[in-house]
């Protein structure tokens, strides 16, 4: 378990995202996008071998499938997971997804649907609410945000609440808000969750060289410091080797702007 001395910020972020899946048991984990996907594979190949995952399409695998062209590597499948069964597992609650919304707010609500005040004629149409309403009310969800800014972490409410959160005004009387389970939010600056008082956002760790004030300045809502807030751990040498194996084409180097080092050089 030698701590690596040199690593990129994306590799640190992968290690931090993997931590979101610790103690998930046999849940189906789905990392959408390269960083969450490598992170889920990293968790499974290191401290969370019980996790279930797919090949990125609809077959279950025990050995996480690397990203991109695989050369001679032929995955072996251990189960079938067509969309019908994805929904069945989603609705059962035995899943943990990590997704990248375009906006997120203080109530842990998230948006990938559309931007602008008028839903009938959005300024920017995006994907649609997709699986966010079903995911957010059925199972645990974590988020990876590559660009921590007030554009993503908005001051008010997200333009379209696609993913349910803890804003009582959006819940009909008698509906059960406790169905919402938010895991961790991992960004290029820090790791936070929504387990402060009344589901307040609280920073669990700051990435090396990042100050709390910098994180707060780039967040549209108030953040708390978790009682044991520390510094985000970088990957170990063993973890780096797994990351390289799961991402042989170095897609991770293109996710964070400028592919910065994991430990910020002193200014």
């Amino acid at each position, binding site marked *: 378990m030698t701590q690596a001395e040199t690593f990129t910020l994306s590799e640190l972020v992968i290690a931090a995202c993997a931590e979101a899946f610790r103690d998930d048991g046999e849940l189906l984990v789905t990392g959408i996008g390269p960083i969450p996907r490598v992170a889920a594979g990293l968790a499974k190949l290191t401290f969370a071998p019980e996790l279930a995952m797919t090949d990125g399409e609809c077959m279950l695998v025990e050995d996480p499938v690397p990203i991109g062209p695989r050369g001679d590597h032929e995955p072996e499948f251990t189960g079938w997971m067509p969309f019908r069964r994805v929904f069945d597992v989603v609705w059962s609650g035995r899943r943990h997804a990590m997704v990248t919304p375009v906006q997120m707010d203080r109530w842990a609500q998230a948006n990938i649907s559309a931007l602008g005040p008028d839903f009938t004629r959005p300024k920017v149409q995006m994907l649609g609410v997709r699986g966010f309403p079903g995911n957010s009310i059925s199972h645990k969800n974590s988020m990876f945000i590559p660009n921590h800014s007030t554009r993503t972490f908005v001051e008010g409410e997200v333009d379209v609440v696609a*993913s349910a959160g803890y804003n009582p005004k959006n819940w009909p009387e008698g509906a059960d808000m406790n169905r919402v389970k938010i895991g961790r939010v991992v960004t290029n600056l820090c790791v936070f969750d929504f387990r402060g008082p009344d589901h307040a956002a609280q920073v669990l760790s700051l990435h090396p060289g990042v100050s709390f004030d910098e994180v707060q300045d780039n967040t549209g809502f108030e953040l708390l410091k978790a009682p044991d807030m520390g510094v985000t751990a970088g990957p170990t040498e063993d973890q780096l080797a797994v990351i390289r194996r799961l991402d042989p084409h170095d897609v991770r180097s293109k996710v964070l702007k400028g592919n910065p080092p994991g430990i910020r050089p002193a200014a």
Partner: protein
Amino acid sequence: MNKEMTLEGAVAELRDGMTIGVGGWGPRRKPMALIREILRSPLKDLTVVGFGGPEMGMLAAAGKAKKLIYGFVSLDVIPIEPHFRKARQEGRVEVMEIGEGMVVLGLEAAGHNVPFLPTPIGLGTDVLKNNPELRTITSPYDDGEVLVAMPALKLDAALLHVSRSDRLGNTLSFGPDPYFDGMMARAATRTYVTTEELVDSIASKNREDLKDNAVERCFISGVIPAPMGAHPTAAHYGYGWDLEHLKTYAASAAEDGGWQAYYDRFVAPGEAAYIEAVGGADAIRALPLPVL
């Protein structure tokens, strides 16, 4: 019993204002030959339901779709369907944007002849605000929980693309995922399938072969031979999606008169000309299946 028909014959059975479900998922196994036939027809005011791909963008761009019912509309490799985006941003199409699971439940309710299915999906989100026709229901049991009553999405017609079919309407849909094609057919009054291959009988002594049979033939009204009929979407195991063509299509959304130019070049001349215009059958068959 012979359900074989032509693209023109199938589209002639559709009417203005119908609600039409389209099978497949995003850029996978869409009945695009039928969509192009609709684009060439005078049909209008359609409501289109599905797991949206290029069919929604095209029908919106052409002004055929009055309303879209979807959870997402995507070309996957091009994440946001460009003509769908354009139509939305110009306010040219009504939408019922709901969780993709709500689409599943709406189709299931229609197929099972119940007015709605209860679900927590949509609670706590703007799906309820943006679709005021959606109502909630209180559990009649002791828990008393309030849930969403997802209404049945009844389809006047479903359009599917299959790998192989006989004239009775026995079909096989190859590939790793059957998506919701069967459910869509059961939600529809009539279902028309385009098929890569029309055979005298799909019969086999191997039970495993029939696991690719997604729906019972009593739901199938018409079978239309349409090799390459899913292009530019993928049809396992015949061909992958055509990324170059999808890029051409996507680029047209950014050009003045782009849709009309795309339509004139690829759609208007008919299916035989279409196959040639996109590179010919051999080129389509050589398109690799996606590796994710």
